[in-house]
């Protein structure tokens, strides 16, 4: 019989090993799944994990990794701060949308003026928009003790309605022949989040994501606020004893997550996507939750996990077009990653022992 035995302290080795094991298990289970769908399992896995990086068309896919990975990392970093403290912001998708609307709105308000300050203003507006959207669950929680999971999640759907309204109404391109969607910011140089080096995929969002990783690392490991975040997550009573103000922490964590998600939305709408449209959001805000946990809520881990997730996105698309795998299968594949991670996670705090049943 197998039993779980609590370790005296969390295993350091397993903390780092679990993501790797989870990825391997996902590959194996994914291969079985693809085999049942009648595809060659080895080739499917190879297509997802190998082609984007090393195939002959990798020059095209590699920049895409940055483009896909950056918003995931940016959002996940913000979420991880709250998750560390036991504050569950599930609504990053909504904060992402609102950030994009606000940022794009500021940019479009200046159209067609060309000035150096327009893009910085848009960045600010994007961050503020996401922050404000996250403040709704934060203030409700602090003031009335509402559950931030529900409130933030439901605000995603409100944000989606708002997005639809914006792309059909207020922000609709007046020269768009009646099609929904705003002007394309890629054609408005002052508002365009262009690649910093042509063809590299490197835009301001990627830079911000890297900066966010570094700042989060410093915050969590060196700063009192980060210490209080970790303390609150691990022992809430000890945190209050240490003098942590829970309300302030909730406002900070949700606010930061919202601002970073808003930034991600702004960089996306002004860069790779280009315009506010009804289906502009593609679920980065939800996928970032997986990224945050896959990265062990650790900034460096999140960076790696964001890259991995972007890989499965792009690899998944290649597999869809080349091998005809259904999109749903790719989504199952990504979901399995979180599932296995949480399952293998047990080994960090417990060791599995084989015991012969003791006679009472």
């Amino acid at each position, binding site marked *: 019989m197998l039993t779980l035995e609590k370790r005296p302290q969390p295993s350091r080795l397993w903390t780092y090993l679990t993501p790797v094991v989870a990825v391997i298990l996902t590959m194996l289970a994914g291969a079985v799944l693809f085999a049942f769908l009648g595809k060659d399992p080895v080739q499917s896995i190879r297509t997802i994990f190998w082609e984007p990086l090393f195939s002959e068309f990798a020059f095209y896919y590699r920049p895409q990794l940055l483009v896909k990975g950056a918003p995931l990392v940016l959002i996940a970093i913000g979420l991880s701060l709250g998750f560390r403290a036991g504050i569950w912001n599930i609504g990053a998708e909504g904060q992402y949308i609102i950030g994009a609307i606000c940022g794009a709105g500021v940019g479009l308000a200046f159209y067609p003026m060309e000035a150096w300050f327009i893009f910085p203003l848009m960045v600010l507006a994007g961050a503020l928009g996401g922050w404000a959207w996250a403040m709704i669950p934060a203030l409700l929680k602090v003031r009335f003790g509402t559950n931030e999971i529900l409130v933030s999640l439901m605000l995603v759907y409100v944000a989606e309605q708002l997005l639809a309204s914006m792309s059909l109404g207020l922000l609709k391109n007046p020269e768009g022949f009646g099609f929904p969607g705003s002007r394309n910011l890629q054609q408005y140089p002052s508002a365009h989040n262009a690649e910093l080096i042509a063809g590299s995929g490197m835009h301001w969002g990627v830079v911000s994501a890297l900066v966010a990783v570094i700042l989060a690392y410093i915050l969590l490991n060196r700063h009192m606020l980060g*210490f209080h975040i970790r303390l609150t997550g691990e022992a809430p009573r*000890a945190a209050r*004893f240490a003098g942590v103000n829970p309300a302030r922490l909730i406002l900070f964590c949700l606010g930061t997550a919202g601002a970073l998600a808003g930034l991600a939305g702004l960089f996306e709408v002004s860069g790779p996507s280009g315009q506010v449209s009804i289906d502009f959001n593609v679920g980065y805000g939800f996928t970032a939750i997986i990224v945050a946990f896959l990265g062990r809520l650790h900034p460096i881990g999140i960076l790696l996990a964001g890259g991995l997730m972007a890989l499965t996105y792009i690899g998944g698309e290649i597999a869809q077009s080349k091998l005809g795998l259904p999109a749903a299968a790719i989504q199952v594949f990504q979901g399995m990653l979180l599932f296995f991670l949480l399952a293998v996670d047990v080994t960090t705090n417990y060791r599995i022992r084989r015991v012969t049943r003791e006679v009472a």
Partner: protein
Amino acid sequence: MTDTLLTIEGLTKAYPGVVANDNVSFAIREGEVHALLGENGAGKSTLVKMIYGLVKPDSGTMTLRGAPYAPAEPRAARAAGVAMVFQHFSLFDALNVAENIALGMENPPPMRDLAARIREVSETYGLPIDPYRTVGDLSAGERQRVEIIRCLLQDPRLLIMDEPTSVLTPQEVEILFQTLRKLTAEGVAILYISHKLEEIRALCDQATILRLGRNVGTCVPAGTTAREMAEMMVGSAFQAPERAPRELGEVALDITGLSVRSPSEFGTSLKNLHLTVRAGEILGLGGVAGNGQDELLAALSGELRTDADAIRLKGRPIGRLGPAARRQLGLLTAPEERLGHAAAPDMSLTENAALTGAQREGLVANGFLKWGKAREFAEAVIARFDVRTPGPGTAARALSGGNLQKFVIGREVMQRPEVLVVNQPTWGVDASAAAAIRQALLDLAGTGTAVLVISQDLDELMEISDRFGALNEGRLSDIRPAQELSVDEIGLMMGGAHGMEVAHV
């Protein structure tokens, strides 16, 4: 009365990595109160679990009244006449006394008969209790009566009691002892586990002392001093705390009309407390747990805010300040719950040192933690308070209770507080660690700190405090000099015997 009831021969039980009992032998005679003494982790619990059939020994034999005895489960032990009262009660609050007792029986009789038997047994042994009262309304002492009556209904030959007095006031202890003496007069043997040495001297006929799983000696408690028994338990010369004469200074902590609503539904609200502690003085607050101790600590640590003027530190109103600001001003606290309240279980000792030491030890600069200095501080606490651990990188939860408690108390003491408040400083801590902690509190008072000790351990409070008061249902008794108090007076200050009295039979 001199027939041997239970003989234990060479009992051994090993768990992975530790031998809990190593070749333990002793004998209990009929009608005898036999004490089992030892520090935490000495193997007392494992031994009685083997006698009660909860754990199977690896080797060794037991003989009960001349017949081989090897209970496979508690039911077999009970059938053989062995009963046990556990330290933690297993009663359902929502049910009444009779229903609770019926639940533990194999074939419960009809409720009316059972209630009559409970009345009969309880009155015979001086443990009056109404079988129809709801357990949730009973005091700790009364709950213990229910557990004892449950055992007595089985007509046991051997009654095992695990730390029975830790939840009782002195009056309740006296009632319990009378009951136990009545039982032994009828030939029932009692195996009595405790580390309260004076109690054992008053009650027990024989004592077996365990250390690190081995039987290290037996003695007749009445003819042995508490100090000698303590030395046998610890295995070395025992350092009893010494109190140097101290000079009292100004009033450092002044509590005036402190009333606090408990944040918890099952907590006890504080009602109009008044007390002062002077620099260099130790004020001991006794009382059975759950009478407002946690709330008082929270009100002093700053976790609960009060009226600004209700708490004054050296004349300065601090009732509205948070924990960090109070620490800055010199009011330090150590809560009862070590893991999860005083320390974060999964964090290292270095991180836990920063938890309360950040402000006074200068571990923060511009909001950034100086981990190097925090580590030095943790190392200093570990070294000065003899905390047994591989190093400051160890997680708090990996430490034993006594070692973590030494760390938690040491962390506050090393910060040179103006006022230190500790709640249950030696709860669940072995004798040598407890002595070290008491000595540290005495030394701290000697340097001019005002110390407020909240504890259930009356011996501890009498040993170290200058003045004594008791908390009872959120109210504070008069505070009186500790030296002139008798045990009876202390009991009355703690709220008497919670309305319980000895049956007049």
